[in-house]
């Protein structure tokens, strides 16, 4: 496959960026999108040019590091995959592919396609945990009976990898799917009940402080989420906050 890539290049956080066109040739349809980016970067390095910076780590769809807004969609046109799991067979020979970083005020661009997602970390630090006494007498979590349905829903919520595709794809740059998932995974389990009210209050407050937008229920986040996190988690977060506020 021969492709034209339109890629956002930005020297650093303070520089003004721009879209730059590149050509890549002999791309195998079996390559992942990131492998295609590796080919481009090898070309750039061999020409003495600055390679394109992009986030990646596990390349197995688990770590949540890779991002990229590809042809107008978070993680590209495929469903239920991260950018590292996106294959070049989703594209055609001769295509022009537009590649941009996540766009949100709360996710400032650090360089090229790399954005700072530490806002998510700060939301997690605000309450996305349970306090466990690690004295050596900690009770086995499996000793507490949990209904299968609750366990399944909690697990579904916990599959959120915090990649930020929900924010990137939301027309309002809302982080409610992420926060909804993190609130839900604890709210559904007995271990999460003790700090539930405090957790949801603090996490929503931190989310608002970070400058994310407001959810208008377009449902785009659920569609683009590589882990298929459901909008039900946002509704649960809303219920949890209502409960915590009365």
């Amino acid at each position, binding site marked *: 496959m021969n492709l034209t890539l339109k890629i956002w290049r930005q020297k650093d956080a303070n520089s003004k960026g721009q879209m730059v066109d590149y050509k890549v040739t002999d791309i195998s349809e079996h390559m992942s999108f990131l492998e295609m980016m590796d080919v481009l970067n090898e070309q750039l390095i061999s020409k003495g040019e600055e390679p394109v910076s992009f986030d990646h780590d596990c390349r197995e769809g688990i770590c949540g590091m890779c991002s990229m807004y590809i*042809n107008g969609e978070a993680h590209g046109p495929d469903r239920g995959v991260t950018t590292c799991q996106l294959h070049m067979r989703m594209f055609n020979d001769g295509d022009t592919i537009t590649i*941009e970083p996540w*766009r949100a005020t709360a996710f400032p661009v650090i360089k090229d396609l790399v954005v700072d997602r530490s806002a998510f970390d700060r939301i997690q630090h605000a309450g996305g945990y349970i306090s466990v006494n690690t004295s050596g007498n900690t009770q086995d979590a499996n000793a507490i009976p949990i209904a299968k349905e609750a366990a399944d829903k909690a697990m579904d919520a916990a599959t959120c990898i915090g990649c930020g595709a929900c924010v990137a794809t939301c027309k309002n740059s809302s982080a409610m799917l992420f926060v909804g998932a993190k609130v839900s995974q604890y709210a559904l389990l007995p271990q999460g009940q003790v700090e539930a009210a405090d957790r949801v209050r603090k996490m*929503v407050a931190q*989310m608002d402080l970070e400058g994310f*937008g*407001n959810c208008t229920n377009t449902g*785009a986040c659920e569609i683009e989420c590589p882990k298929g996190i459901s*909008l039900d988690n946002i509704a649960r977060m*809303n219920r949890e906050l209502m409960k915590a506020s009365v």
Partner: protein
Amino acid sequence: MSGFFKSSVGRKVSMALSAFFLMIFLLQHLTINTMSVISADLFNEVSHFMGTNPLVQFVLQPILIFGVVFHFVMGFILELQNKRARKVSYAKNNGAANSSWMSRNMIWSGVAILAFIVLHFIDFWFPEINTKFIQGDWSGLHDGKFRYFHELQLKFVNPARVAAYCVAFVFLGLHLAHGFTSAFQSVGAASLRKKLNKVGLAYAILVPLGFIIVALFHHLSYNH
């Protein structure tokens, strides 16, 4: 609780609560409008009751105005916040791949409805306020007969105004097509959002269509 309504989640819930109130109001308004098609006398009687009943005039009407103003003002405030949350737009964005046009354009269908409400107030509400509160005429009579039905007919003589009404109600339908189920999601009733999908769609089509039919009926049936 005041802290709740200052949060993004609380504001979303407050938008939904005002939306529920306005959706119930729309049903009541459509019911009375439909009476004008069934019987001029019935419409006159009900209009006079609504226009002179102290509970309606001094309790329900202020609540309604608050609900309308709140929904619009909060809608604009949230939209401004959302714009600030993404200062740099995407060069290429494929919104249609993951969401409906209606859900992405609530602000524009809302602006169209606001423009209609301004026209509606100029047509009906301001003259009513003038007659009742400035001129002090609470009789509802003109030349010894109830004036409401005749005034309604006169408003739908001009085809341009009728066209504007019809277009506005199409936008209302688009707004409701997303807004109805969205309101349930916002208050945390995710299961109702899914169960009421068809009810929401029916509401979004039938209610605006009802208003359009009433407007067209009076435009076509008025004997010049």
